[in-house]
């Protein structure tokens, strides 16, 4: 819309190089985007390791025996819903509504914590059944891949708490807004990784 205004006024808008460096919000978000992509590349290595070692069970339990699809479905629903509420929080932040931000953050945190609780209980159940990471190459790869995602979710939850404390004490200042923007990117990226994870690990593990 601004472009048409500029053209109507008979002046061409300056190119990016003439306009000078981009605003910090764009630079910061782009840098964080690069970090997220590198994080996804790291996950791809773990995915490759898991797929290669999937059948190396060394006589131990296989995925089809261990995985509980009902629990995975609930975990998936929690993480997807928390991604949605994170989007709602972003909308509240962009229109500077403090209450909406807190409610969105609270829902996001609760759903993320529910996901993490279910995952930790799943790990504990598996280890209680003797399916610990030491049992076979398959289980080592499984715990590395799923545990790494779980660690990211845990880090995201801590980050969310810190951000809410910053909103409460500092308000919607520019640095706080940039951090909130990076947090929402991080949270959505975690959900994208989980999509690959539940497909490759759980669904393909049970199907084949």
């Amino acid at each position, binding site marked *: 819309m*601004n472009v048409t205004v500029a053209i109507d006024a008979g002046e061409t808008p300056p190119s990016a190089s003439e306009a000078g460096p981009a605003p910090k919000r764009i630079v910061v978000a782009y840098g964080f985007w690069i970090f997220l992509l590198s994080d996804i590349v790291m996950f791809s290595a773990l995915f490759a*390791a898991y797929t290669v070692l999937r059948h190396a069970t060394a006589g131990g339990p296989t995925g089809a025996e261990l995985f509980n699809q009902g629990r995975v479905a609930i975990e998936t629903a929690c993480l997807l819903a928390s991604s949605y509420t994170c*989007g709602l929080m972003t909308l509240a932040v962009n229109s500077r509504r403090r209450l909406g931000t807190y409610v969105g953050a609270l829902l996001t945190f609760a759903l993320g914590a529910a996901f993490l609780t279910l995952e930790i209980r799943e790990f504990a159940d598996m280890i209680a059944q003797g399916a610990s990471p030491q049992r076979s190459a398959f289980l080592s790869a499984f715990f590395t891949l799923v545990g790494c995602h779980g660690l990211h979710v845990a880090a995201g939850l801590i980050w969310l708490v810190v951000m809410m404390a910053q909103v409460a004490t500092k308000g919607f200042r520019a640095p706080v807004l940039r951090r909130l*923007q990076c947090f929402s*990117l991080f949270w959505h990226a975690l959900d*994208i990784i989980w*999509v690959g994870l539940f497909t490759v690990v759980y669904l393909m593990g*049970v*199907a084949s």
Partner: protein
Amino acid sequence: MTTERYDRAPGDRSLLADEEEATSSGLLIYSIGMVLAVVLTAASFWVANTPLLWAPGIPLGLAVLAIAQMGVHVVFFLHITTGPDNTNNVLALAFGVLIVLLVIAGSLVIMANLNGSMMPPAELMDMQMKY
């Protein structure tokens, strides 16, 4: 305003997200994405468990559904578009996808080749010795 030519920050729906983003249209976009993601997830779980489909095709079907859902997340939650203000974000994403594909497909091909040229198990070796 001199910001027309800047690239858009990933995750923002417009350059001036701070001031101009209408909450109702943003809500609509997130909701469409949520509905699509739920449908695709439900389809994945159905495909993995149904006896109706040809079993060897199921992993391929699951992969297609997962890639579709990742696309939905990228478009509706991360707001990556093909617009000219998104070129940098899309290029970075494309490079990331390239590396991911190289790592995963390369590992699978190499390891399948290695497995194929491994020494066969003992019973098979015995058979070869006998005849």
